[in-house]
């Protein structure tokens, strides 16, 4: 597709959509993992120990970033669609990105 795309609104959209897809795919797995607690604490503990490996930890970090990015992008959209229009709203894309990165940093540093 050869459309002109290198502007903030486009990037905001693609991040929002891709993060949404990733989260939608992750959610069932997340629910199933938590559901193992039904079989008792031991099952959940077993699963949580399985997640104690670097690749999984990295994936978790990415998911947290994606969640934060999707949230920030979503707030930007709600602002653009429901608040009176102002020109600086274009800068909301940058603000959203900043928020997502901040959240990711917090998560990484919290470990």
């Amino acid at each position, binding site marked *: 597709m050869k*459309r002109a795309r290198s502007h903030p609104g486009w990037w905001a959209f693609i991040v929002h959509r891709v993060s949404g897809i990733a989260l939608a795919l992750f959610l069932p797995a997340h629910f199933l993992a938590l559901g193992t607690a039904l079989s008792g604490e031991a099952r959940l503990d077993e699963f949580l120990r399985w997640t104690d490996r670097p690749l999984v930890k990295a994936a978790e970090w990415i998911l947290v970033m994606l969640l934060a990015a999707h949230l920030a992008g979503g707030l930007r959209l709600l602002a653009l669609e429901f608040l009176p229009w102002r020109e600086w709203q274009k800068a909301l894309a940058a603000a959203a990105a900043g928020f997502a990165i901040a959240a990711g940093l917090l998560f990484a540093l919290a470990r």
Partner: protein
Amino acid sequence: MTLRVRAWRGGAEGRFQEFEVPRRESQTVLDVVTHIQRHIDPSLAYRFACRVGMCGSCAMTVNGKPRWTCRTHVDKVAKDGRLELAPLANLPVVRDLVADMREFFDKWARARGQFSPTATRADRFAKVEPQGAERREADAGIECIGCGVCYAACDVVAWNRDYLGPAALNRAWTLVNDARDGGNAERLRAVAGDAGCHSCHTLMSCTELCPKQLSPTRSIAGLKRATRGVAFGGEGE
């Protein structure tokens, strides 16, 4: 100094043909296309009219972006001496660089982009406060000349065949805010739903590229609010 120009030849099926065009100072892309047609290949089909940035007829895809060729300086876009010209995207091709604009205007009509009068010549003038909120909203979008650049730039138009597109929705918004117009019940229904404003994802390519600096995104955001009645209220108001 020469420019290497690739121009689309043919219809939906076709190929890019290469031309070498002498480079000149203050040259516009329209100058380039005109040179090709007049001095190299008279069979090249393209559109233009006013050539001074008023009519929008010369809109086409220049190096991947829809622009007005008469208002695009070669220096600004042909960084490495190369130009790629194609007809406007998202529209059927008539021939070479000419796009078929019928679908664009059909959607304009489907969005009820026509004025619905509520008075006759026998009535007094309508008194519309120019600085009122509604009139200012309408005025922000009223300068559209239907060039099709926004339509060609919009990814949602590419992904959703029924999507009315930025220009049609922008025009509908100006009429929604026109105090003299009486067609809002039908109009708001026409611009709602998956074919209407609710499919806009605020990509803002339209706003980014509009040669008249309009913001269809802003107008469509207004329509999203204005169509609340279509979703929940009585018929469309």
